[in-house]
């Protein structure tokens, strides 16, 4: 009897996920091959004919690969450095390296704009110092995109590598040393093979994020198109069917990448591993090396911190006062006051708040159900559910936005399609779908880490299912729930890519308001929104981590 009920729940969840995750993608695929007169390959032909389509796809691909290479080049050595060496400023720097993670994509991009853009601090400074007529550079094209990507995505490699290194037992290094292996041989034969799967995981995550990246290409791309921006442009042109084909092509690239890196583990394997004893740090003894390391460390810290500081500074600039001076001449609180006092300005804040909260709660509830099913015995069903939950991760946000907008633009309840476009429900639904992978991964990992004997112990002590859930399972899952929820909330709160395609005036989120402020050259307000986004993200992360460790 009990088994039956659970089974029905699992089937219901499976159907819900098919409806939310798979169905819209299938519809997009179908729509791409349907013209006014029935089935057609016309749009596919168009896709292959147009030069700029191939260029955009190729742009997406190489930018993503280059991003992986750059991020690995920065993230891996940095992680190794922190794991193995003691150097001046190690502690402070250690707190700063993960800073890019609290910058939502769009906020990072505008911070770079204020900092390194044509009229940004750095270029104005260089122009002033070198007495140039023109700005020394233009922050545009592939180089600009790569710069932002490298800054924001090296963190993945850094965190994956650190996590893997943390589980490497120092005894293995000592064993290698006692067997006569020098530093390089140990690194090559012991450390790297150990890191392999973590590095693959970092590469996969970086590639997928870069492929789906929208903010940087949208703001800095200029004439350089990648597929995500191409899709939006095509859609704005009204070529809906062609946009569908583009969407399908981008999905295909994502799935191929996933297949290539299929051996890569998920983060849960890393955290669940056995805990090694960390090796003692090697102090850097040579004096000049210490000086060099110290200087490099501080430069790095500055580079990491500058975007945040820039944003903060610009958020105090009154509208229209800052033009060509290296530093803004006037400062004011008014930008922040506007966010609170002006109903038009404060509305996006409230919107983002409730949208992200609703999406997060729904994602956590689904993740809880799915995680619970994953540790029960209905393996086949649970595995399908886990697969569906992970799918949105492999599909760029632009694609999902298009898919949802297409699927829910028709009123045909019998085919599972209702009109949500233009209502306030489409955006939270999109956030929810996009949040499913992160949240469910964290929560499922939490479930897997629970000792099944605890459930059994509760049963022998006479606790029924609900009491066990309330008194044992949920309290122990709290760290995982907090981690999953905080990640989901931060992602939804700062979302730009799905919002730009699905928002309505009533649900316009912060990111859209930042964009429109920028368009009106109201940089101060745009930055103030950015600071709020950044601060809320950081606070939510901190709460998530704090509650997590307290549990």
């Amino acid at each position, binding site marked *: 009897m009990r088994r039956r009920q659970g089974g029905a729940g699992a089937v219901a969840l499976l159907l819900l996920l098919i409806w939310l995750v798979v169905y819209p993608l299938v519809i997009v695929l179908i729509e791409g091959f349907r013209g006014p007169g029935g089935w057609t390959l016309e749009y596919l032909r168009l896709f292959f004919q147009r030069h700029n389509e191939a260029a955009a796809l190729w742009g997406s691909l190489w930018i993503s690969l280059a991003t992986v290479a750059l991020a690995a080049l920065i993230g891996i050595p940095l992680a190794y450095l922190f794991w193995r060496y003691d150097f001046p400023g190690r502690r402070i720097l250690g707190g700063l390296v993960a800073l890019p993670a609290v910058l939502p994509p769009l906020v990072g991009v505008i911070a770079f704009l204020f900092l390194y853009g044509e009229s940004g601090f750095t270029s104005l400074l260089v122009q002033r110092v070198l007495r140039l007529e023109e700005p020394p550079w233009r922050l545009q094209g592939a180089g600009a995109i790569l710069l932002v990507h490298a800054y924001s995505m090296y963190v993945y490699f850094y965190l994956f590598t650190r996590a893997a290194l943390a589980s490497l037992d120092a005894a293995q290094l000592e064993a290698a040393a006692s067997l006569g292996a020098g530093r390089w041989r140990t690194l090559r034969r012991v450390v790297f093979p150990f890191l392999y799967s973590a590095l693959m995981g970092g590469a996969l995550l970086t590639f997928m994020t870069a492929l789906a990246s929208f903010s940087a290409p949208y703001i800095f791309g200029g004439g350089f198109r990648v597929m995500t921006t191409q899709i939006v442009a095509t859609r704005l042109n009204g070529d809906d069917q062609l946009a569908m084909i583009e969407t399908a092509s981008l999905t295909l690239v994502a799935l191929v990448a996933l297949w290539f890196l299929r051996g890569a583990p998920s983060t849960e394997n890393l955290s669940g591993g056995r805990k090694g004893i960390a090796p003692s740090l090697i102090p850097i003894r040579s004096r000049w090396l210490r000086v060099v390391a110290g200087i490099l460390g501080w430069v790095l810290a500055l580079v990491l911190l500058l975007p945040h500081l820039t944003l903060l500074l610009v958020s105090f600039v009154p509208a229209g006062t800052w033009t060509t001076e290296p530093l803004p001449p006037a400062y004011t609180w008014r930008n922040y006051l506007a966010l609170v006092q002006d109903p038009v300005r404060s509305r996006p804040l409230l919107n983002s708040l409730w949208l992200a909260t609703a999406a997060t709660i729904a994602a956590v509830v689904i993740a809880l159900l799915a995680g619970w099913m994953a540790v029960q015995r209905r393996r086949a069903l649970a595995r399908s559910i886990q697969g569906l939950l992970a799918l949105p991760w492999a599909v760029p946000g632009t694609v999902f936005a298009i898919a949802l907008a297409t699927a829910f633009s028709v009123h045909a309840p019998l085919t599972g399609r209702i009109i949500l476009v233009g209502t306030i429900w489409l955006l939270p639904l999109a956030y929810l779908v996009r949040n499913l992978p992160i949240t469910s991964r964290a929560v499922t990992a939490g479930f897997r880490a629970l*000792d099944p004997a*605890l459930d059994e112990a509760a049963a*022998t*002590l*006479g606790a029924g299912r609900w009491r066990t859930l309330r*008194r044992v399972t949920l309290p122990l899952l709290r760290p995982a729930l907090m981690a999953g929820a905080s990640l989901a909330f931060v992602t939804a709160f700062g979302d730009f890519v799905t919002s730009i395609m699905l928002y309505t005036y009533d649900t316009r989120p912060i990111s859209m308001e930042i964009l429109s402020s920028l368009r009106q050259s109201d940089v101060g307000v745009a930055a103030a929104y950015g600071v709020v986004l950044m601060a809320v993200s950081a606070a939510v992360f901190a709460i998530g981590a704090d509650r997590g460790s307290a549990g």
Partner: protein
Amino acid sequence: MCVGPASGERQQVVKGDAAERRPFLRLENLTKRFDQTTAVDDVSVSLDRGEMLALLGPSGSGKTTTLRLLAGFEVPDAGRVLVENDDVTAVEPVRRRFGMVFQHYALFPHLDVGENVAFGLESLGVRGDALNGRVARALALVDLAGYERRRVGQLSGGQQQRVALARALAPEPRVLLLDEPLSNLDPALRERTRREIRELIRRLGITTVFVTHEQDEAFDLGDRVALLRAGRLEQVGTPEDLYALPSNAFVAEFIGRSTSIGVTVIGPGERGLRVAVEQVEWDLTEGLTPGVTQGPALMVVRPEALRLTQPTTGAIPGRITERRFTGSASLYAVLTAGGTTLEVSGPPRSVSIGDQVGIMPSRRAGGGIHLFPAVPA
């Protein structure tokens, strides 16, 4: 003293009229299959009230599965579990009222010691002062009075074990189940904890089934021992029975030290049974399994049932290959002429490695030599 379902009065019932006593806990023909393997194969045992039964066996013998069938975590494919003639086979663990101490204790890490112990009592609806009183009493039983507000993580392994025991006992379960209760303790602590557990359970008179793979533990704690192999119950009996009257070669070899050698039973001799061992013939009087009166057989011998002599007639010739000093005696490994190694107990330093010796049955073999039907190779 009110923890534990059975105190003095009930124990007297058990001891009172042996003829009328009914088993308190019965396992009837329990069978459990996982995919292809049969983990528990037609196991039947009965326990009197207050009795302590050890489930002993090598790993994979089905002892833990048997315990889980008892607890209700597994549902048997066949057979029943009865408590006082009440069939509980289909009763869920939650309502079975069997207490259990898990191998790794399974203490709730987010609750403190008192909350852990209170957990089962709260399920019974005990609240307020009554709850606090019973938690305190349960903790006092395991010598942890006043530990209520300690965090589980701050306790030593031995203390955690005792909290787990207090938690299982507090709701006064009908049956107590222990899964390898001492396996996570270091050897010195294990000895002491074993003694404490034995005394506590005796005092409470609670019917107990525990799993162990260590013979010492089974013998020390168990009133009776059930020896399992590959899911089948090989023998149930008191430790003395298992040692002195093993029902088959597996039991004889698993319990205590022994070596075995193929022999041929010739027939009745001058005293007892005449047996040909390699080139010599012995008359054996004790420890013979009825049924082997003629033909090939397997002889399982305890080291103390053999003695070393000069190589003479009537003694199996052999060479000392190993010597292990055990304190009061030494154990000698002797490679016989026939190529079998036998373990023989003898005075320390009486012979050296490489010496040619003879092996004879000890004059006081006392149940140390057992003959079983030869297993076809």
